[in-house]
């Protein structure tokens, strides 16, 4: 079955606008969402990435340029990812549309390229 990653982009609106009760509600929705995915065997994994900027490497001429980043705007920061399987993009969207991350960010779905058997 095809596999997909859900890239979770953090929103521009800070999470600090949530009240303690609302934060707890979001966490509980995540729990319910992931439980559903786990039950159907859809969820293969997921990790949070640290909030700090990472390192961006670029080869310029012969020199390697290493910069901190991407900084620029929060919306470019990937906060984490989930790894799922689905029949096709349509089903992947179905799965992601209930993802509580959408409460405060955007989700990008990318299919993982399968290597053909050699």
């Amino acid at each position, binding site marked *: 079955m095809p596999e997909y990653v859900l890239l979770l982009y953090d929103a521009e609106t800070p999470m600090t606008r949530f009240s*303690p009760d609302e934060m*707890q509600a979001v966490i509980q929705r995540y*729990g319910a969402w992931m439980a559903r995915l786990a039950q159907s065997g859809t969820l293969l994994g997921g990790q949070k990435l640290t909030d700090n900027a990472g390192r961006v490497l670029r080869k310029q001429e012969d020199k390697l340029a290493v910069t901190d980043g991407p900084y620029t705007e929060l919306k470019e920061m990937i906060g984490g990812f989930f790894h799922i399987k689905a029949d096709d993009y349509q089903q992947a969207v179905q799965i992601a549309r209930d993802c509580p991350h959408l409460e405060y960010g955007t989700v990008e779905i990318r299919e993982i390229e399968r290597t053909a058997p050699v």
Partner: protein
Amino acid sequence: MGAEEQVHGLVDHLFRHQHARLVSIMVRHLGGRHLDLAEEVVQDVLVTALQQWPFQGVPAVPEAWLVRAARNRAIDRLRHDRAFADRVPALTQALLDEEARYNAVQGTDRIARDRVALDDEVCMLFMACHPDLPRDSRVALTLKTVGGFNVAEIARAFLAQDATIAQRLVRARQRLRDRAVAFDLPGPAELSDRLDSVLGVLYLMFNEGHTAHAGESLVRRDLCDTAIRLCEQLAAHPVTDLPKTHALLALMLLQAARLPARLCETGELSLLDAQNRERWDQNLIARGFHHLDRAGRGDELTAYHLQAGIASCHAVAASVGETNWPQMLAYYDQLMALQPSPVVWLNRAVVLSRVEGPRAALASLDAVNDDPVLRRYHLWHAVRGALAAELGDTGEAAEHYRAALQCQCTEPERRFLAARLAALS
């Protein structure tokens, strides 16, 4: 991953309550001047949980995780600040102890968890309700700190703008700093007055939740529940475990017990006569009577005692007909003597109508007919309408109901009054 368990792994309002405890502990060690810093650190900690728990799952002892995160965050935040150099070790130790206590009480009931930082939370409550603050600010600051509400939630509760509440909170913290209000339990000489201020704030909070003044919702249950929770803490603390604390707690529990029946299944207002008493919460009633009993162990008689007594008359009655109205009338008379107010007089009239009939009740209301506050109060007109209708005077009743509809009230109340008016013709 045990995901199913995680969903149920968080007790209701855990974040709210943990916010209250952590802020209180931090202020104890950072000093009252640094209330905003404490709130900031705790907010950061909760956001960290929001970011991490979805991926890692809810920790086995969520409270302990949050305390540990608070310790790390506080150390990180304060270690380069010389002003806090001498405070960080004590704060670190306090948070280590706190974490150990949560690990020790895990799996036990809510009460044990709620008592972990009791002393700090009670001190925070005294600080937020300090008499040097304007009354509106006391309520807002109490909800923000020990209530665990955010600005938007407080604004919603009081039908105010977010900016107004935010401003009120900034000023309140500033004033606490200016007056150098200590984070401590009041001494014996001032305890009674300071406690009165705290109880007054909780009473106001409860009433705001109990009788919302406008909007679609008749009852703001969270305000009631928060007032009860904070009063339970006072009742559990050796210094504030006093008859009047128990009297207020009994009053709120007995009132809250009847809240589920105030709205019928369709969400419409349901008056006492029509209420399904099976929907009254017997657990809350039992707790209410427990505290009413404790309230009687002393020689102090406060307005809370009398109001709790009135509420208890309703709570024990199997029906409207079996209610001890004469006893209730006696409580109202005592209340009028102790704390006279037009609203108490209005409520007394309702009880009087059960004892002596609608004509006597209407006559008693005529005595205060020119009170400007009452004339803007929808229930003033609604009660007169109901009494007139009972006497068969539909013309006058309609007039009163129309006047009631001119006043500010909640949407369910408006629909109720309109239905009463329509039923007259």
